[in-house]
């Protein structure tokens, strides 16, 4: 790929920051907006992906591989989290027949 123009030459790092920030913010919005626990979980995944993207971008722009290593670890964690989270959802659904987070408000005050 030596002949291709690398992205670092044409796209300023700022763009990646903004893109990630946008994805991250969308994820956050989704977390606030949705009542379906599974969708909320997906939105969290989206947030993590925004971070991953930014890490990868930094890694390339800084020419430092540790960013990409970090992305792997984040993926690991995301997978683990997703599995535990989904297990929790299943358990809750078993008990309540619902995955609506706004019904989970019995513990308060």
């Amino acid at each position, binding site marked *: 790929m030596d002949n291709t123009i690398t992205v670092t030459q044409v796209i300023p790092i700022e763009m990646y920051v903004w893109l990630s920030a946008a994805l991250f913010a969308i994820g956050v919005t989704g977390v606030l907006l949705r009542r379906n626990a599974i969708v909320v979980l997906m939105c*969290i995944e989206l947030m993590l992906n925004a*971070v991953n993207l930014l890490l990868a971008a*930094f890694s390339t722009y800084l020419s430092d591989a540790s960013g990409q290593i*970090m992305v792997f670890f984040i993926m690991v964690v995301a997978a*683990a989290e997703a599995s535990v989270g989904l297990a929790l959802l299943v358990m809750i659904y078993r008990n309540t027949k619902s995955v609506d987070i706004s019904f989970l408000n019995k*513990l308060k005050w």
Partner: protein
Amino acid sequence: MKALIILALTGVFTLFAGLNASKRSVVQVIAATGLGLALVATIWDRFWAAPFSIGNMLTFDHYALAFGSVAILITLLIVLLGRSGYQGDSENFGDFKALLVFSLCGALCLFSFDNLIMLFLGIEILSIPLYVLAGIRKNYPASNEAALKYFFMGAFATGILLFGITLIYGASASFSLSEISKIASSGNQLPGMLKVGILMVLIGLSFKVAAAPFHFWSPDVYEGSPNLVTLFMATVVKMAGFGAFFRLFDLSFAQISGVWAPTLAVMALLTMSIGNLTALFQTGFKRMLAYSSIAHAGYLLLGILACTRYGGGALLLYTLAYAVATVCAFTVFILVAQEKPEETTGMDAFRGLGRRQPLAAFAMTLAMLSMAGIPPLAGFFGKYFLFAQAFPDYFWLVIAAVVNSAISIVYYFRVITEMYFKPSDGVEAAPLTLPLAYRFVLVAAILILFAISILPGLILSWVG
């Protein structure tokens, strides 16, 4: 490092032992032995081994070992309670113990990380078992709710933390704390990204230690989780959070405290005030302790803000005193809650305990007094060192903390009132038997509390 390995293995062994649901005592013995070995190993390392570092990732220095040994000790006490205090399904008993031990591994990472990757992993290792543990009473709706709330908010906070770490990485091209602090202390104009990153990491960690306004999860989760898990969260997890906080902010970002200190100061004020004020109105014991733990987090943030004099020693002393007192309180609470239906574990569960079970009542009293920070109990020395070192720079915050401690007396003393001063009759007056393990835990906790108040200087120098 030895401890980490021992603990990981302990976790695995416990898992296997737990396959046979009827052999609870085996699980118990394995877990306790493992933890005991880990404790010995940590203490050994602390006093008789040179600081040991793994490739710029983990450094087992005095600080890490001191906090680690305390965390292991507390976990050991919790595990000892775990036989009759366990509230989940019996076939999960082994899993329960294993998850506790795994979570403790995360805590150990948080005391010794040298790299933001390890910070992140440590937090996750700490948290993921906890999400499960919170929900381990699978048929108990409150437990379900607690688990889900903890999970969602924890995952959300992880996102924030990661975003912060990424930004720091972007600014410094490294995850290594030593590299980052080089940039931070270079004296050049700091990159904006670094500042934002540090603040987002701060927020992520604040969530873990339940500092306002990122504390919302903790009362609900504490209330809904099984008692032992709540205890673990209130002690080891909180300790781990602050251990990480200190390691990150006071050992690496100390030079640029201007970036994070003002924010943290306001958060400290908010945290202690919200914790205390809300705790005042609580009728349930666990929930009250949850709010009180928020308040304690507020005080502890003072130790993060100003660590000029005693370093992490003050923090260790405080967390140790607080954790031991909490163990005491929960032990007694589990004891009295056993004979109550779930819904009514209010303060009145303690009524007449002074006569029914004097030792338990005494331990509870010490715990409450210690948490309230009344001399000469351990909690006082914890508060004293925190406040004293924060006093020159955060004068106003210390005054707020002092007023808050005074307010806190009201709700801590409510328990004492129930135990000793309220008339008790009928069933409430019948003597209560104290299982041997509980007796052991209580006596150990009382001894530790007294030891702290007699020789606080020793604990203080533990990290140095």
